[in-house]
């Protein structure tokens, strides 16, 4: 395989390149998910984000998600790229492309992929807010580590 279907990169992601990776003659649908950096979260303004990854394991886990999708939706093909490092508002953090003979599987598999990324892929987001910075502990944003550890003071600052 000349190009990898699962990548962690530091440069901007080219969406078109992921579409190309999953293009096949038997496909009748390609879905893409593009995850971008949001400015406002629950009234808090993000200035920029910093993503960190355990790169070799993250690539393995992306491939594992691809395998799981192969089991659940046998005729699909998946490519996932996640960007790390410094990302500004509206920058693309993740792109998932899924091709399939029919659209339903392409939609379903694509949503499955992003849900699994948020569960098992060792990537961490550090939010740089207008008034401070926080490692985000999970995607529900219910666990965070202000100042590097859980801290009741942060509740007051919300």
């Amino acid at each position, binding site marked *: 395989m000349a190009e990898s279907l699962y990548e962690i990169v530091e440069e901007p992601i080219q969406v078109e390149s992921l579409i190309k990776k999953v293009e096949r003659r038997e496909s009748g649908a390609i879905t893409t998910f593009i995850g971008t950096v949001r400015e406002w979260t629950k009234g808090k303004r993000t200035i920029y984000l910093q993503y960190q*990854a355990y790169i070799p394991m993250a690539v393995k886990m992306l491939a594992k998600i691809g395998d799981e999708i192969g089991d659940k939706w046998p005729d699909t093909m998946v490519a996932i790229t996640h960007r790390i490092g410094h990302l500004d508002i509206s920058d693309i953090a993740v792109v998932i492309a899924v091709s399939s003979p029919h659209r339903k599987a392409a939609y379903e598999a694509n949503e499955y992929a992003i849900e699994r990324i948020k569960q098992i892929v060792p990537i961490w987001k550090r939010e740089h807010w207008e008034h401070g910075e926080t490692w985000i502990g999970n995607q529900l944003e219910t666990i965070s580590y202000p100042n590097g550890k859980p801290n009741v003071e942060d509740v007051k600052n919300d």
Partner: protein
Amino acid sequence: MIKVLLFAHLQEKLGKDQLDIETNQIKISELKHKLKDQYYLNELDGVMTAINEEYATDEDVVKSGDTVAFIPPVSGG
């Protein structure tokens, strides 16, 4: 020797991303205990573990040459 990798807030707290632990064999739960004592890393309680890039449990045992990574709750996407 066991290589230990740290990420996110763990890495920041320790001021380094890697530790070398001089031991031939240790259970993950014991390793966590040891690091909590030695570096005041109480944050290790809510953290997953990977051995050689695969998720593992506190009951698993690592041997010299293995790489252990502590994986705080992930927030990619």
